[in-house]
């Protein structure tokens, strides 16, 4: 009896250990992968058409969901914010509330999560499928490096697209907040924009939001191309990889957001 319990425990520990070491070695592998992608990046820019195509598929095709979500989030922020601010007679601060919430946090984070789900999973699926149908191997055998031709352009396409999408999310969110706050609820137009302008500083609010979205872009793009490249060349392998991209990207975004917020806005006070 004892022996069985101990054996089970030992098995469990062994599995935990191998999961951890597996995870750590995958992290190392992913870092080397990042370096390899960066190393092969010059070609992605010399033949700019490759990267432009990826910006189209990752960025332009995400516009609809980003703009609509941004507007809805801004509108809801305005509605909810108004109710609470009214209690303290501070309803004229609605502009600052909506703008700061979007620019500092919601813009980069929500745009990042949406991007990971839409564009990230698409990139992973595409690369995984190319791996499964031996297209990547065919390229290698034709003496064309898939890292330079397929992976790097998709990585940079994501890195360039997401910050722009995050800014658009915030901008449309503020517009949505304006529509609800000024047009629907009836807050003074001048107060809305005036307080906002006074309260939102380019440095640190807007710039930190931009920095966040760039960091998220690198994380999501790297995870997306890595999971695709590393996927098992079967149908299940590709589907697992796609799910992993969305889950790991989302966790990474939220974790990085916390870390960056602590450093950026600690003691900002206002």
């Amino acid at each position, binding site marked *: 009896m004892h022996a069985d319990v101990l054996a089970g425990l030992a098995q469990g520990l062994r599995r935990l250990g191998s999961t951890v070491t597996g995870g750590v070695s995958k992290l190392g592998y992913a870092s080397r992968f990042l370096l390899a992608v960066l190393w092969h990046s010059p070609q992605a820019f010399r033949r700019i058409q490759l990267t432009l195509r990826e910006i189209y598929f990752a960025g332009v095709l995400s516009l609809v969901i980003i703009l609509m979500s941004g507007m809805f989030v801004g509108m809801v922020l305005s509605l909810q914010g108004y109710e609470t601010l009214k209690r303290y007679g501070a309803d004229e601060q609605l502009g600052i509330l909506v703008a700061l919430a979007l620019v500092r946090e919601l813009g980069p984070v929500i745009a990042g999560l949406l991007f990971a789900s839409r564009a990230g999973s698409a990139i992973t699926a595409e690369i995984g*499928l190319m791996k499964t149908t031996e*297209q990547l*191997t065919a390229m*290698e*055998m*034709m003496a064309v490096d898939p890292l330079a031709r397929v992976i790097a352009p998709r990585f940079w396409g994501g890195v360039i697209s997401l910050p722009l999408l995050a800014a658009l999310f915030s901008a449309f969110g503020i517009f949505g907040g304006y529509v609800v706050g000024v047009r629907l609820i009836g807050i003074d137009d001048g107060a809305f924009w005036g307080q906002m302008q006074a309260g939102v500083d380019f440095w640190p609010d807007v710039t930190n939001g931009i920095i966040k979205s760039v960091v998220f872009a690198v994380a999501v793009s790297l995870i997306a191309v890595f999971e695709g490249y590393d996927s098992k060349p079967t149908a299940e392998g590709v589907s697992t990889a796609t799910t992993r991209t969305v889950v790991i990207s989302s966790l990474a975004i939220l974790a990085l957001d916390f870390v960056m917020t602590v450093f950026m806005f600690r003691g900002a006070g206002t």
Partner: protein
Amino acid sequence: MPAAPSAPSRDAPAQARQVESDAAAIELIDVSFAYDERLVLRGVTMRVPRGKIVAIMGGSGCGKTTILRLIGGQLKPRSGKVLVAGASVPDLDADALYALRRRFGMLFQFGALFTDMSVFENIAFPMREHTDLSEELIRDLVLMKLHAVGLRGAADLMPAELSGGMARRVALARAIALDPMVVMYDEPFAGLDPISLGVVGQLIRKLNDALGTTSIVVTHDVYESLKIVDYLYFVSEGRIVAGGTPEDVRSSADSYVRQFVDGEPDGPVPFHYPAQPYAEELLSHAR
């Protein structure tokens, strides 16, 4: 010209009869390879003379595709030598390896066409990547290659719109796009209808002779292979068990060759997966 044929011997481990003709374009000398701990190839020795078509035959999973990957430099052998035109492939650095691969053409099992490009662009791909030819010249070359495989009219189709046989032919055109020195075919006959089979087989032979390339065909289609190749190697459990010209093979008395050529379910390659004796297993209750 090949030396006087003698019956292929089957000693363990069997060595294929050497073809004493032109200098070998490709040579494997006592090559062993293992995936993790599973030994896939054990002491394989084979020669592919320049300008000839050689078939590598065997059951599924016996290491045929591994041989192609070793020649292409995707894998490194555990021991032994892999020589292409005299150069040892595993020892080449990245640049030299890419230079070598530019002179290879490879046909993958299901075509492996780039799905986001049209037929034309698939074939133009190696030209655009490796040469500085003008677009007009590339256009002419692509059309020539397509014409050689009979698909010039399909130039603007996307891979998803092609039938299996057509996709295979387009992949063939892409494989010979840069007039390679060596062409490797991985199961070119798998899953094709009888007409396409005939077409692909004839194309392999004709293109090989017209371009003066050396071809290696990995397949288990005996009928088509015997029609077009110059020499065959039989691989079983990681070893070369038999080899010979088509005439040798057709008239061979070797039990493995016979089982393969005649398609017998049981023989040197057993029907039953290793298991307990039948009566014992039925009668025992533990399971």
